[in-house]
């Protein structure tokens, strides 16, 4: 196992694209080679060493590499792009598109992360300790397949449209979610431990959304089915009880929406549909 630590040594004032910083792309190289590699800062090509102090050594196999990037990276883009193996640890504030299109390996963000985290993700795991922006595990503009595999765990709150066009895989949000998680989703599972601002599963065709916290109301295009004591998120079971809705009927959807019973007394009236 080899560890490479990149520590940001100056303020970033323009978008910096770090899509080449993944274990698979740096493996087998000397640290000096990596240091002299060029990336975009705004419209300029700059050497990585002008941004970061680099220490450690680089193994030959991606799986053996642990990349650690430290600093305020909020103006960076695409760290972990198309990553296939190894681990990548971001300490500080992560930027946009962390782990976009990744298919393997692990990314850990110790801090906040920007929007489009894990967009088009195919496999691997991403974990964020702080809060995350919008479009987690979403699809790129115009496409209809977002996250297609892997596991994303957000320990803090998440923004809007988590899992937009999600096709498979798992997203866990331990905090709250803003509007429209699982919009257009066709498969996979989203579990929100906290509250959701609304519109969960908007235009969803398939897949499963579990809300253990509060959500004012499901969309009018969802129909109430039953109350269930518990459900599953992948293997591990999630305790309810839950109001179970199916939808989005507007898309002939057979997605499932689970909303915690105890935390949502305002939905009690749905129980009238249970009689008879």
């Amino acid at each position, binding site marked *: 196992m080899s560890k490479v630590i990149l520590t940001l040594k100056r303020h970033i004032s323009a978008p910096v694209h770090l899509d080449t910083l993944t274990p698979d792309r740096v493996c087998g190289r000397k640290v000096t080679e990596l240091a002299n590699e060029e990336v975009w800062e705004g*419209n300029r090509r700059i050497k990585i060493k002008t941004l970061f102090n680099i220490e450690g050594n680089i193994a030959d196999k991606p799986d053996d590499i642990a990349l650690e990037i430290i600093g305020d990276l909020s103006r960076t883009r695409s760290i972990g792009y198309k990553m296939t193996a190894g681990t990548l640890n971001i300490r500080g504030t992560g930027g946009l598109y962390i782990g976009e299109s990744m298919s393997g390996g692990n990314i850990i963000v110790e801090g906040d992360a920007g929007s489009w985290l894990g967009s088009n993700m195919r496999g691997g795991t991403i974990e964020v300790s702080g809060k995350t922006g919008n479009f987690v595990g979403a699809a790129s503009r115009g496409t209809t397949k977002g996250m297609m595999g892997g596991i994303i765990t957000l320990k803090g709150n998440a923004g809007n449209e988590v899992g937009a066009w999600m096709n498979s895989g798992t997203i866990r949000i331990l905090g709250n979610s803003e509007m429209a998680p699982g919009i257009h989703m066709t498969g996979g599972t989203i579990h929100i431990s906290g509250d959701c601002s609304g519109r969960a599963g908007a235009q969803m065709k398939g897949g499963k959304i579990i809300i253990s916290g509060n959500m004012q109301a499901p969309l*009018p295009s969802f129909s109430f089915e039953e109350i269930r004591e518990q459900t599953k998120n992948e293997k591990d079971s999630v305790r309810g009880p839950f109001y179970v809705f199916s939808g989005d009927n507007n898309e002939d959807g057979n997605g499932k929406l689970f909303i915690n019973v105890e935390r949502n007394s305002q939905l009690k009236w749905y129980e009238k549909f249970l009689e008879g």
Partner: protein
Amino acid sequence: MTEETIQSVVCTVCGCCCDHLEVKTKDNAIVNVKNACAMSTSKMLGYMNERLTQPKIRRGDKLSNSTYNQAVDSAARILAKSKSPLLYGWSLTSCEAIEVGVDLAEETGGFIDNTTTTCHGPTVLGVQEIGESSCTLGEIRHRADLIFYWGANPVHSHPLHMSRYSVLSKGRFRKSRSERTLIVVDVRKTDTAKLADVFVQIEPNRDYELLSAIRAAVRGDEIEQDEVAGVPVERIEEIAEKMINCEFGALFFGLGLTMSAGKSVNIDAALSLVRELNSKTKFVIMPMRGHFNVNGANNVMTWLTGYPYAIDFTQGYPRYNPGETSAVDLLAREECDSALVVASDPISNFPLQAAQNLASIPLMTIDPHETPTTLCSDIVFPSTHVGIEDTGTVYRMDGVVLETRKLVDPPKGIKSDVEILRAILKRLRTIRRLG
């Protein structure tokens, strides 16, 4: 003393681009305007107010007079130095100017965005997911028997829209108001709502819920809730009936939909509803574009780069992702190191934090008038008025293209946006060549 009356003048205020104005000029000044709305008249008669008369460059705390050559040179030098410049505005100028603007953005390796970003940007994002069943305004005038204004208040924002193109117009198959039904959906009973056959007052930020409820009703699905967004389900079902049973329906929507919670998601729902309706009848949808050439800005940028706004040239080819590459986000994240504003007033229009960042970087502005943005600029270029002092191509909200007319000469020595932008581009290329 020379008097002239000019017919079929194209108005350059809102997205209606009315082209039936009659303008009387006398000694190179506009003295009278016919057929125009209040906004248009105000512009036609007030276009000389608060004009910038000379290029200015900031020295210390003050903007002091300069020349076009000096201003062009300083601007080109700032752009040449910039790692991440933002070129913003474009919806109040001609397509000819916008084309030069895109080349300038590519040459500088910067970002170029137009005012779509803060008006119908979400509409574009919705269209890119769903598509759009639309048409030119004449189709609606001739055929529509059911017309919606949703989150739009044309009486105030597009004063002649109803009489020229929609509910109050006379078409081949719809002769009078009585042959059309007008439904207005808004959070307030606006002056437009007062003219409606049906007014639906909706709770703020609940448009998506109402749209999906109507779609469910159109599909004949049962809605379990008794009311949605403050509207009783019976009412929703009535509306759905009207939509299904019309011969030709048209849904116009405004910023009430694009700016409310959900933004692009609301548009997504509206586009999906209208698409759904086409399996039952004929239905079209159209955004009420605000500025007279914002649609032109979208079109020019699209044919040159593939994308209608929020374009990133920093890596030498067009990238696009509103939310990342759009003006307000770039400024809010403090990612730009200079800005060129053309025919727009972002200091007034952008939220405080974004505007403050804009004011804190080298700011260059091309505009006919003094505005808060010119007050905050380091370099100011006075320019001519397209459609008054200069010709130029503009795109109506439905994509119909018009060539505006030159009515009077510009103030002496004042250059057009095209001339100024070409000069900056030329100077920039020279600076680059000399390295």
